[in-house]
């Protein structure tokens, strides 16, 4: 079940067009019956009367790519997926834009939801990525 290493980290937001292109590329994989997709979107959180304008993502790149690879390997052992893709932003992503795209494809739907949740939870827990929330008035906060 070992799959080749994928580059997961992408500069800037994940665009809706990138997502639809990814979906369209799977129309030739006609053994797939179910796609489960997670998209992380930057919230315009309001803290102390100040709105988040964007988030700046940074990573320990090589360690992060290793962590994504391990998550991928573990997920393929655990769940009956036909294929799986992860894309995570680096750099600036504005409120309303997408910073994480997890794409799980299975023959049947049953396990796809659990696989999706597992992968997203693993990313949040085990990948060395940090975010800096930039606010409208110019201050910032590390998360």
């Amino acid at each position: 079940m070992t799959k080749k290493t994928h580059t997961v980290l992408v500069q800037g937001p994940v665009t809706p067009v990138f997502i639809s292109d990814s979906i369209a590329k799977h129309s030739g994989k006609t053994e797939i019956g179910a796609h489960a997709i997670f998209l992380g979107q930057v919230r315009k959180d309001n803290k102390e009367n100040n709105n988040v304008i964007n988030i700046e993502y940074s990573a320990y790149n090589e360690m992060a790519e290793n962590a994504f690879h391990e998550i991928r390997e573990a997920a393929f052992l655990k769940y009956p997926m036909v294929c799986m893709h992860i894309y995570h932003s680096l750099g600036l992503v504005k409120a309303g834009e997408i910073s994480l795209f997890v794409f799980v494809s299975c023959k049947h739907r049953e396990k796809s939801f659990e696989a999706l949740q597992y992968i997203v939870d693993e990313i949040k827990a085990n990948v060395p990525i940090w975010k800096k929330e930039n606010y409208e008035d110019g201050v910032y906060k590390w998360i």
Partner: protein
Amino acid sequence: MKSKQILNTMKIKLLFFGALTDVIGAQEQMIDMDDNLDITYLNLDMLARYPSLSNFKYKIALNKIVVNKDQKLKDGDEVAFLPPFAGG
């Protein structure tokens, strides 16, 4: 001749992420350390140089793997200071 003088020196690359880049004022430092020292020693040295570091939670990775502090260091090692992860 004291034993200290025959010790070799190690070059260690330090990396800082997230809020720690602000504490240290840099993303990267190169330091020289005496041979045979471990991560606990390095960490205490950093806390002495940057006292406000003690206000932060962080793990330490040696050559991209999170390790315990009793790990010995060697020349050319890369040590990273990692605040809690916040991907997604």
